[in-house]
């Protein structure tokens, strides 16, 4: 009868990966490694449709050949991982380690988890209208609790540094974790025998091997968005220094960085007087806000006012595309080597609306109203354009548009936006009189207005709905909560259906379809 107590059990490994992350290559390496070092290896996977971007699990079991020979029998190895039965979990992405956790594959008695800390966002995280990124901290917390050992570092970064792929880094970390009974050279030989991308894989393996040995799990993502510490302006910028002093003297300390950022942005956007205007608009509301001693209201107001005042128009876009530092940024983004030449083609689609927005107010309105002028223009602008700011023609075109900024205050768009800003600020004032919570909601509603073209139109419609809601029930005791709920609803779907449902009994007066002249392609 079998002696079931002392029997040797196989080493079990689960690789959690997404299609295209090289989980198959990693699995092949491990099989080769085991088979070349006196182990029997069994590996399975379920590629199926999961090979296309979906999550995939590769499962391996390794068993010493000598042990099998001694018994004169072949081991019976499982074809899929079971909770409580997995020694090593390799995760090529952080939330995939979470998936191993969810499946119960991580247990304190035996599981070593080796995970890359980088994130590859899922489609629902990416397609959210606002911020849909899930918090990895609960996963990290539970991995720390449930895993026997937990090795975590940014393997994507290591792969990138070494010009290799994440499978090589995982393999290095596996070697560095010393959880398999094979020496480092055996791992490296498996890579060599694989014969593809050997030198880059070995480099990645080497770095990762070291990292795995001194990798402590992250405490928390260390580098959060570093709010630009107000860099001291250069001496010659006397006006900037004065503005800075003004901010420091008039605004409470916690609000200053945001106000300063706002001022810089508006100078960049228009000019110093425009930034002063911003400060004045803010200061006008200081009294009302300070009464509540709530800095978050003032900070949010400073932030949203700056954003609104620097609304994206054609002038702004053209300006950003021809700035000196732009090309360097693109080169960095596309990882161009110094000896490579980079040209960009900017995908722009100025429609008749954007053109009119940039015209003087009266003229712009007239064109929008006058069908025989607008229609041919609309036809001419039906197709998008590709403009290259690194070629003279494109550069000069963008330069011309950017130069219109000295007339920006006369444009139709400026006029419209200014009216909206004033109306919004008036609403903010009224809300401040009610409560800081309601005011905060009115201020934050501005965040719904973003983007260009249809996106902007949709955002504006949502914003208008929320403002209308404020006018209707702003004084109700639960107004802040209801406004917050409406703001979330506005970001729930593109068609605004959730928002329509949420407003309930009353229908907002401005519906998106009402503005017929602004629909790009008419219904046929």
């Amino acid at each position, binding site marked *: 009868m079998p002696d079931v107590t002392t029997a040797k059990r196989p080493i079990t490994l689960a690789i959690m990966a997404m299609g295209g992350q090289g989980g198959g290559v990693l699995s092949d390496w491990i099989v080769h490694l085991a088979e070349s070092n006196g182990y029997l290896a069994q590996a399975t996977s379920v590629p199926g449709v999961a090979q296309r971007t979906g999550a995939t699990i590769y499962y391996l079991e390794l068993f010493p050949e000598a042990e099998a020979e001694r018994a004169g*029998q072949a081991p019976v190895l499982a074809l899929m991982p079971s909770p409580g039965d997995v020694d090593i979990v390799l995760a090529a992405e952080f939330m995939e380690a979470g998936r191993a*956790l969810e499946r119960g594959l991580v247990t304190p008695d035996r599981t070593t988890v080796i995970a890359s800390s980088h994130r590859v966002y899922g489609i629902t995280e990416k397609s959210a209208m606002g911020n849909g990124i899930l918090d990895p901290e609960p996963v990290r917390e539970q991995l720390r609790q449930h895993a026997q050992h937990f090795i975590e570092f940014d393997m994507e970064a290591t792969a990138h540094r070494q010009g290799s792929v994440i499978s090589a880094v995982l393999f290095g970390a596996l070697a560095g974790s010393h959880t398999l009974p094979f020496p480092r050279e055996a791992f490296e030989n498996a890579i060599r025998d694989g014969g593809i991308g050997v030198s880059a894989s070995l480099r990645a393996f080497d770095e990762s091997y070291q990292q795995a040995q001194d990798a402590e799990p992250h405490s928390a993502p260390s580098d959060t968005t570093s709010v630009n510490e107000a860099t001291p302006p250069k001496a010659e910028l006397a006006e900037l220094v004065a503005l800075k002093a003004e901010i420091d003297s008039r605004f409470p300390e916690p609000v200053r960085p945001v106000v300063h950022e706002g001022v810089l942005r508006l100078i960049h956007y228009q000019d110093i007087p425009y930034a002063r205007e911003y400060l004045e608009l803010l200061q006008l509301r200081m009294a009302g806000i300070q009464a509540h001693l709530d800095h978050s209201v003032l900070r949010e107001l400073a932030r949203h006012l700056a954003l609104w005042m620097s609304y994206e128009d054609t002038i702004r876009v053209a300006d950003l595309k021809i700035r000196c530092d732009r090309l360097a940024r693109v080169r960095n983004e596309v990882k161009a080597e110094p000896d490579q030449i980079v040209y960009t083609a900017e995908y722009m689609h100025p429609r008749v609306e954007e053109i009119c927005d940039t015209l003087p107010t009266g003229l712009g309105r007239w064109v929008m109203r006058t069908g025989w002028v607008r229609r041919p223009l609309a036809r001419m602008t039906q197709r998008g354009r590709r403009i290259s700011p690194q070629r003279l023609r494109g550069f000069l075109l963008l330069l011309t548009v950017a130069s219109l900024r000295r007339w920006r205050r006369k444009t139709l768009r400026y006029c419209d936006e200014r009216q909206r800003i004033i109306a919004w600020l008036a609403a903010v004032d009224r809300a401040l009189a009610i409560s800081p919570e309601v005011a905060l909601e009115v201020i934050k509603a501005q965040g719904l207005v973003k983007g260009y073209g*249809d996106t902007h139109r949709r955002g504006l419609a949502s914003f208008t709905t929320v403002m209308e809601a404020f006018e209707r029930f702003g004084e109700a005791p639960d107004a802040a909560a209801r406004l917050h709920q409406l703001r979330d609803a506005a970001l729930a779907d*593109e068609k605004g259906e959730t928002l329509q449902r949420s407003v309930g009994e009353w229908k907002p007066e401005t519906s998106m379809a009402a503005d017929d002249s602004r629909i790009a392609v008419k219904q046929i």
Partner: protein
Amino acid sequence: MAERTFVEEVKKLRLGEGETFQGEGILAVTKALLQSGVAYVGGYQGAPISHLMDVLHDAQHILEELGVHFENNASEAAAAAMLAASVNYPLRGAVAWKSTVGTNVASDALANLASGGVTGGALIIVGEDYGDGSSIMQERTHAFAMKSQIWLLDPRPNLPSIVKAVEKGFELSEASHTPVMLELRIRACHVHGRFQTQANRSPSFTIDDALANPVRDTSRIVLPPASFQHEHEKVNTRWPAAVNFIKEHGLNETFPGDHADIGLILQGGLYNTVIRGLERLGLADTFGNSRIPLHVLNVTYPLVNDELEAFCSDKRAVLMIEEGQPDYLEQALASILRRADIDTRLHGKDVLPKAGEYNGQVMLKGLRGFLAAVAPTLLPQPEALPTPDEQAPTLPPRPPGFCTGCPERPIFTAMKLVERELGPRHVSCDIGCHLFSILPPFNIGNTTMGYGLGASAASAFHGSKGGRAISVMGDGGFWHNGLTNGVANAVYNGDDDVLLIVDNFYSAATGGQDLPSSRAENPIRRTNIPIEQAVKGVGVKWIRVIDHTYDVQRMKATLTEALTTREKGPKVIIAQSECMLNLQRREKPKVRQALKEGKRTVRQRFGVDSDTCTGDHSCIRISGCPSLSIRPNPDPLREHPVAHVDNTCVGCGLCGEAAHAAVLCPSFYRADVISHPNRWDRLLHRWRQGIIQRLQAWREKRLAPLPPSAHLSGETHA
């Protein structure tokens, strides 16, 4: 050319007597076929069988040497019909497909084949796509075996057992004049293991021999009165012959155990999971030595009554471990025991779930349940299960989707934009990569009724006076049966709907196999047969061919035209662009080589300007490209993450085109990166930059000078 090349692995097919084969299960099956002296092979691709078809394709020279004919059948029905060669002649033939979908398609031919019976061994290898990772409806092939009386093998999932099943399968088929199915579960197909090989055998009787001496026997043709005779033959002659063969050759296995008063009866394919379960309960060792007796059904149809009676007669209770539903085996066993008047208690789906895959956890729980009921003293102390007191963290769902740069994505981007303008439509989907349209971010599509049946599934809407329905079909489905069932049918019935045929040059979803309309020259197949001509040939008048699917505007305009034109009859749009996986696989090495040689090359990829992106993610909602992602907003005043194109971008151009077509935003740019620029490139660049930089310097001097700001200088944060 298939997604994976097996040129290296194919060498293993040459292994001779007593050598050790190491590799994938499906490759072992191929080797076993050659060892069995098979005369012809065929089938239709589809996971987990695709690799078998690819291996055979790459092994053409070996097959030729042995005199084995290999056919890429047009469908599973065609493959099953090919087995007709074994009806009159002592030819061994094997075909393979994904089941149950393929078996559904093949069942007409299979039923005819099974009725008349076979002379030569006929083996059908079915990849049972059931359970975790499956892409099809959850059904059992078992039902087909029962209804047509085809014998069903379900061997233990290790390479020696699988190889033996192939060899014995042919013998069983010949001994009982009945086709035999070999069922391999998805993991068994992909399992890496080893077995001792034998030398390959040329068929003793070849297809040439058959054609030189044609045999005709009307008693084998399914037509009265022979068809009535066939039914009697099946139950009175062939069935007993099969049972005898199974007994004589010990195809089923019984393993003893010291707790002899109880026992487990299981499908062979579940053996490893059962052993692991017992091992974890302390009732077996790693080598499969169990303390509870096991009866392993490597043949699950027909059952051998004597063997089951013998196994059960001295037992208080047995557990029938049978995956899937209905519980055919359990019912059969109950009836066997009842008739033999054996009062062994029968457990099965009372302790195991009625539906769903029996994975390790489920099996463990089922075994515990059985033991708790019949022998609680054998149970170890229950393991301390992880306390489920904490809330499971939220994880992002990862549905499969279109690959980076997929040419099918822009088709659905265009459809989504048309939907915004003309309102939602009924969309009838097909089988293929394009079915990913039903998932986020596109959420387009109402039903899918089977391979090549996208158009047929919209037939009921032919009579509508209202808006037109849209059906989608891939090139794979088109050649599988869509040309007749879909297109010709639509013409004949006066359909007024829109049919979109996605032509990506391959049967892409199954691994990039060639098709009649593939553009590549295939050394052993004839390709380059245009879909357009076939469609014209069956009488479609309104045809539009879009030879570059990435042109979203054109795609959108064509769809709009098809939906709104006054012309009657089916509107067929053929959208063509090569599958990006295949394109990259071919082109990437060339580019790498050119770079190595210092040749001028231009790499295109896309990017998003984070300072003009406002974080609305409209672009993602109409594209869903894996390389189009998000990252924290570098702008300190903004909160929502910005869009971002990572370095896996292949420069297909969809995001730019979509930004144009949907009038999204001016944030997208295409970067042309010129490596090893020539002298003219460098000169022109220097000249352009000279002027532009001077103008920039002049301009920025006049603007208010500012300290560098993080987000404006493009330093991104983690």
